[in-house]
C-alpha cells in the first residue's frame, strides 16, 4: 500500500468522513460549505471570502491543471480546509508551476481527499452548513465532534478584520476616476476590473472611517466582498451609512449586505449558501438572464425591503432571493453575486460599466 496520512472530517452533528491528507498535517475548524464549480479551484483557494470555512468541491477531480502564479484572488489562502474526491498527482497545463499537492504542502493548507464529496454535499444540502473539524492528528469521531461544537462558527463574528489589508495602498498609478475600495477581503479581480474601466484604485482597510475615505476625494466607493456574517461588522455599516449620502457606491457580496443593513434592512443565514458559478440571475430591468458567480452564506431578506426607497434590480431564479438592489435616494447600488467572476463566467462584468456611468452622472 502507498504511504498515506489518514485524515478525518467530522461535523458538529457527528457525521464523519474518512479520507487521506494531501496537504498540511494538523487540525482546523470551520463551517463546511460546498462549491459546485468544475474549474477555478485556485481562485477559490485564494478567495478571502472563504475565511472561516472548510470548502468541499463537488467536482471530484481537482488539481488537474496545477497551480500558477497569476490565477490568484489574494496573496494567500484563507480557507480553513479543502475537501476533494481526488487531488491530481500531476499538473498538466502550459502555465502550471506546481502541482496542487506541492502547493498545499508549501503553503501549509489542510487538504483531504478520498471523501465521498457527493454524500457530504447532500448532507450539507439537507441539514444545512455546519461547523466541522478537519484533522490528521485526532481521528476520534467523538472528540472531533466535541471540537466542532465548541468551534467559533460564523454567526456574529468579525472575520473581515482577519482578511482586510493592514494599510491604505494605491493599486495603480493612473485612472480617470478615483475609486476607493473598502477591503473587506477583496478579490483581486475586482481591482483588475476597475483598472480596465479607467479607475485609479485606492484600497483601504475595512476599519477606515468615512472621513478618511472622503478626504481621498473619491469619485466612487466600492464596498467589497468578504467573509462571514454582515452583522458581525457593525462599524462597516456605520461607515457606509455616512458615505451613501456623499459619493456613488457599488457594493459586491458582503458589501451588498452591508449596504442593505445600513438602510435598515436585515439579512439572514441561508441554509447552505450559494457557492458556484452557474446561478441564473435575472436583471429585472431588462429581463435578461445572466449566469453568475456566487459565494455567500448570508442573504438580504426579501420581505422587509422598503420598496419606495429600494428597487430590487436582480433576483436569483433558482430560489428567488434578492441579488441586486438600487437605492433610489442615493447613487448607490449593489449585487449579491460576483461581477468580477474569477472563477466563473464573465458575463456580469457590465455592472462595472454601470458603476462608471453612475460616477459619471454624479460628477
Amino acid at each position, binding site marked *: 500500500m502507498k504511504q498515506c496520512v489518514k485524515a478525518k472530517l467530522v461535523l458538529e452533528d457527528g457525521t464523519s468522513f474518512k479520507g487521506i491528507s494531501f496537504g498540511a498535517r494538523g487540525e482546523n475548524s470551520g463551517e463546511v460549505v460546498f462549491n459546485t464549480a468544475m*474549474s477555478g479551484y485556485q481562485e477559490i483557494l485564494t478567495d478571502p471570502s472563504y475565511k472561516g470555512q472548510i470548502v468541499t468541491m463537488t467536482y471530484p477531480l481537482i488539481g488537474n491543471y496545477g497551480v500558477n502564479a497569476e490565477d490568484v484572488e489574494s496573496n494567500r489562502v484563507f480557507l480553513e480546509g479543502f475537501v476533494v474526491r481526488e487531488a*491530481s498527482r500531476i499538473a498538466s497545463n502550459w502555465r502550471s508551476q506546481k502541482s496542487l499537492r506541492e502547493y498545499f504542502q508549501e503553503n501549509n493548507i489542510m487538504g483531504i481527499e478520498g471523501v465521498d464529496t457527493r454524500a457530504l454535499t447532500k448532507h450539507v444540502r439537507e441539514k444545512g452548513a455546519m461547523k466541522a473539524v478537519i484533522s490528521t492528528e485526532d481521528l476520534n469521531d467523538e472528540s472531533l465532534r466535541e471540537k466542532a461544537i465548541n468551534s467559533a462558527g460564523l454567526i456574529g463574528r468579525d472575520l473581515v478584520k482577519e482578511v482586510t489589508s493592514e494599510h491604505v495602498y494605491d493599486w495603480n498609478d493612473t485612472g480617470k476616476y478615483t475609486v476607493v475600495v473598502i477591503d473587506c477581503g477583496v478579490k483581486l479581480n475586482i481591482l483588475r476590473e476597475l483598472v480596465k474601466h479607467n479607475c485609479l484604485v485606492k484600497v483601504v482597510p475595512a476599519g477606515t472611517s468615512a472621513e478618511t475615505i472622503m478626504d481621498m476625494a473619491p469619485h466612487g466607493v466600492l464596498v467589497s466582498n468578504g467573509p462571514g456574517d454582515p452583522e458581525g461588522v457593525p462599524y462597516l455599516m456605520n461607515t457606509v451609512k455616512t458615505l451613501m449620502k456623499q459619493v456613488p457606491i457599488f457594493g459586491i457580496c458582503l458589501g451588498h449586505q452591508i449596504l442593505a443593513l445600513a438602510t435598515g434592512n436585515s439579512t439572514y443565514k441561508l441554509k447552505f449558501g450559494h457557492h458556484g458559478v*452557474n446561478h441564473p440571475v435575472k436583471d429585472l430591468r431588462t429581463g435578461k*438572464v445572466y449566469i453568475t458567480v456566487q459565494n455567500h452564506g448570508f442573504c438580504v431578506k426579501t420581505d422587509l425591503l422598503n420598496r419606495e426607497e429600494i428597487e430590487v434590480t436582480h433576483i436569483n*431564479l*433558482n430560489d428567488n432571493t434578492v441579488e441586486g438592489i438600487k437605492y433610489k435616494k442615493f447613487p448607490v447600488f449593489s449585487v449579491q453575486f460576483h461581477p468580477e467572476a474569477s472563477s466563473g463566467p464573465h*458575463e456580469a462584468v457590465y455592472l462595472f460599466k454601470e458603476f462608471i456611468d453612475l460616477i459619471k452622472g454624479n460628477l
Partner: protein
Amino acid sequence: MPKRNDLHKILIIGSGPIVVGQACEFDYSGTQACKALREEGFEIVLINSNPATIMTDPEIADKTYIEPITVEALEKIIEKERPSALLPTLGGQTGLNTAMSAIEAGILDKYNVVMIGADYDAIKKAENRECFKKAVQKIGLDLPKSVLAHSIEQAKEALKEIQLPVIIRPSFTLGGTGGGVANTQNEFERIAELGLKNSRISEILIEESVIGWKEYELELMRDKNDNVVVICGIENLDPMGVHTGDSITVAPIQTLTDKEYQGMRSAAISIIREIGVETGGSNIQFAVNPKNGRMVVIEMNPRVSRSSALASKATGFPIAKIAAKLAVGYTLDEISNDITQKTPASFEPTIDYCVVKIPRFTFEKFPEAQDVLGISMKSVGETMAIGRTFKEALQKGLRGLEIGHKGLDNKQKYNQILDEKIKNRLEEPNASRIFYIKYALQKGMSVEAISNITYIDPWFIDNIKQIVELEDEIKNTFSGDINQIKKNPNLMDILREAKQFGFSDVQIGELIGITEAEIRGIRKENGLEAVFKLVDTCAAEFMAYTPYYYSTYEDEDETRVSDKKKIMILGGGPNRIGQGIEFDYCCSHAAFALRDLGFETIMVNSNPETVSTDYDTSDKLYFEPLTFEDVMNIIDREKPQGVIVQFGGQTPLNLAKKLKDANVPIIGTSVESIDRAENRDKFAKLLKKLHINQPRNGSALSKESAKQIAQKIGYPVLVRPSYVLGGRAMKIVYEDVSLDEFMDEAKDISGEHPVLIDKFLEDAIEVDVDAVSDGEDVFIGGIMEHIEEAGVHSGDSACVLPPHTLGDDIIDAIKDQTVLLAKELNVKGLLNIQFAVKSDIVYVLEVNPRASRTVPFVSKATGVPLAKIAAKIMVGEKLLGFNLTAEKKLDHVSVKESVLPFSRFSGVDIVLGPEMKSTGEVMGIDKSFGIAFYKAQIAAGQNLPNKGNVFISVKNDDKREIVFVAKKLYDMGFNIISTKGTFKALNSNGIKADVVGKFAEGDARLLEFIVRGDIALIINTPSGRSGQSDMKSIRSLAVTHGVPCITTMQGAQAAVNGIEAMLNKKMSVKAIQDYINK
C-alpha cells in the same frame, strides 16, 4: 413571453438512415422534440425514411411521412399538409441540408412556411467555411490559417500560402466525408480532388494543420432573448487530427484552467451571437495549442448534434427537448429543469462525476480497410460510462464497448510486442491506441515520452499509469490461492481502490488467478458493494426527482427502491453493424408498454445515442455497461420481478445463461428455448422432430472434420462461427482451400463454440418472418421476401412486405412452420425465422426466439406494434386479448432497403455477402412494388436515373436474365454500355450496346466515364468465386463517385421495375397514419 401563437403545425425533418456520422442520436433528439412540441399543443408533421426509429412511430407525430428525405418529397408534404413552420435543426446534417435546398428552391416561400430554430443566413454563415471564417474574424477570434478552393487549380495555388501538412475539409458534408490530412503534394492533390467531389457546392477548405493540439467542444443553447448557456464542455482525449466522433472524449473539460475555460466560453457565446442562431442548440469546436495556450476556433454546428446527445446524457439536461421549446418562442427561464423541478433551465449544468465516451469501430468487417483514424469519421457507435474518477469511467467504458475487453486489460502480452510496433501504434491514431498506451507504460515508457508521440495530454496518460501501477500492485500482492488472498491484511483496501479505479471483478480475478465469482464473493462478504449515484444536472445542490443512476464505489447509495412490481430491460449497448437502433426501438417499446401496464420499468444501457437512455423512456435508468457484474449489481439492489434479455440484441442474450444461473427471473421465452434454437445440434433435432426441412449441415471443431462435412454435404457451403450476430465472419465457400482459410480465421471468434457448416442453397429466395406468440397462439406479424437471393445477409438484403413472388402454398407452408416452431419452443414474445425457398421447397435457415432487426419495419408496414405486444405477453398477457386474429390484409407495399457504409472505407469491395455490412435501413411505401422499391432506393441514396448510360456486366449464370433487364432499360431510352461477354448476350437478343474492354487489358475508358460522371447506373453481378479484381476497382470507383451500383440480378430487376414505374407515374406521398388506420 410564452410560446408563439402564430404557429399551429410544425414540420420536422428526421435524419434518415443510420450511417457513419449520423446515428440514432437524431432519433433521440427528434423524438424528444416531437413529444415536447405536441405537449405544447402543436400539430406535428414528420418526414423520415428510417422505419427503425421511435420518432416514426405513428403515435409520436400527427402525420408521419416515411418517405425519402428529398426536396421533392418535402415539397409534396408541404403542399399537402401546409405547415406553418419548418424545424430543420433536429435531423442532423441531412435535415439541415434538405431544409437549405428547399429554401433555395423557393419552396418555403411558395407555401408560406417559416423556418424556426435557425434561419437560412445563420445556417449558411455557420456551415459555409468562408462565411464562418469572416464572422469569427469579425469578432476578433483566432482561426487556423486557411484558404478556400473551388477547383484543383485554386487548391494548388493555396499551397503557396499555407505549408504542408494541411487539412482539407469539404464544405457541406456529413462527418467530414472526403476530407483528410495531406503531408505530401501527391496526397494533397488526391484528397483535394475527392473533397471537391464530395462537397455539395464543390468547395474545400485548405487549412493550417493544428494536428496534435488539444481539442474541445462546447454545447450551447440560446433563446430569443439572447440568453445563452453552456450545457457541457467536452475534452477530446485524442487531440486534433482524429474526428471527434472517433475520439475518446471526456466531460467535463479536465485540463484547462478557469481562465482558459472562461475565455473559450465567452468566445463560444460571441460566436453563437454573431452567427445568429436564434434559438436552440449549437456545438462549437476549439483547438488549444498545449505549448502556449493559443486558442483557435475550428467549427460550429448550428443544430443539435451527436455531441449534444452525448452532452444531454452526460449532464441530464435534455438539449433537444429544450431546443424545440425555444424554437417555438419560450425563453430558457420560462422552462423548468425536469430533474430538479424547482429551478429553471436558464442555468449551466454542473456535474460531480466524470464521463468518458468511447467510439466503437467495426474494422473487422472491412479487412481491406486500415484501422487508422483521421478527420473522416469511421466509428459506427459509441458507449458512454460515468464514474467518479476518469480511471473508473475509462475502464467502465472499455468493458461497455463489448469488444472483449474487461476494462483496460491486456489482450496481448506487452513484453512480446516489439517497441517498434508500439511506437507505430502510438504515432498513428487507431482504434486500439488506448491499449498501446498501456503496453508502452508497462514496457517502461514515460508519461512524457508517450505524450510527445501521441500528443495526448499527460494528465490522461498519468491516469492510465495509475491503473497500471495498481494492476502491478494487485499482481504482486496476491497469489492465486484464494485462502492466502483472503488472509492478506491489505486485501480490502486494495480491492476497494481497484473498484474505485473501475476494475471489474473478472479483470481483478484474471490478474491474480481466481474467478470472477470468487472476487465477487470476497466483496460481498466484506460489504464492498457498488453504490448508485444520481445524474442530476446540479452536483447535488438541489433535490433531484429523476431516477437516472450510475454506479461507483463510495459511501452513500442513493437508489430509491420502490415496492412496485418491477421489470428490468437490458439494452443493446453500443451500436455496431448488426446491432443498432432496431434493438433500441424494441427495448424502448418494452418500457413504454410495461409502463402502461403499471409496472415500474428499469432500463440498463450504455449507449448515449439512444431513446432508451432518455430518462423519460423508463421509470428508472441505469447508465451502466452491460456485463454480468454491472447488471447483477443493479439486480441485487432493485430485485426486479422480471428481466427482459430478448430485446437488446446479442448483448443481453449473451448474459442470459449466467443471469439465469444466478437465479435472476428472466421472463418471456426461456433461456433453454433460446439455446435450443441457437445450438445447432439441438436445433437440428428440433427441426427433425417437427419434420421441417433444413439445408444439410454439420458442425466442426477442426479443419479435418470441416472438410469431411463439406465434402459430405457438397460445396458450396455456408460457414460461420456459432453465437454471433450480423453474420460476423460468415462466408460462402466453394472449395477446400477457402474452407481451410476460414477455419484458420474463425477459431478465436467462436471460442469453445464450433464452426457451423451449411449447404448453401444457390439462387434460393430468402424469406424473413416476424411473429409473436404467447406459447399457445401465434400471430404472424409480417412475411418479408428478400430481393437479393439467399447468401446475402438478411440485414443487407432489401425485402418486400407482403411477398411479391411467392405462391399461396409456399406462404401457407411458411406460416404453418412458424406456428409449429413457436409452439414447440414455447415462445413467449417475439420470434424471427429465416426461410429459404428453392424449387418450391421451404427450408428453415434460422430461428431466433427474440427481437429481430425487422420488428420495427414490420410494425411500421402493418401498424401492429409487435414489440409492445410481445413485452406485454412476457408479463403474462395473452394474444387473444389483443384482437389480432389473422395477419392484416394490406393494400400497400413496403420495401426495406439497407444502407451501406462503403464510401467511408476506401478500397473495400462493395459486393454483398453473408457477412452483414450495412449500418442502417430505409423504407419505401406505396401502392405498387415498383414505386415502393424506387422510393427505398432514393431514400438509401441510390439515385436511380431516368435517362443516361447504363453499364452492364454480369456473370455467366445471369446472362439469360440480364437480357430482359437490359431490354427494358433500352426501351425506356437508356444507352447500354457493356463488356464483351455481356455484349454478346445482349446483341444476340437484338439489344444495341457499346462495348468497353477490360481495364486489365488496357482499356481505361470505363473508369474515365465514371470519373466524368457519364455513367448513370452500373449493374455488375460478380461470380461467386474469386478473381474479379477488374470489376472490384470499378465498383469502388462507382461508390466514390456516387454512381448507383447494383450487384445482384434480383436487385437489377427490382430497380428496373422501379425506374419504369416512376417514368409512368409521378411520386406521391402519404402519411403512415393514412396507410394503417383504414
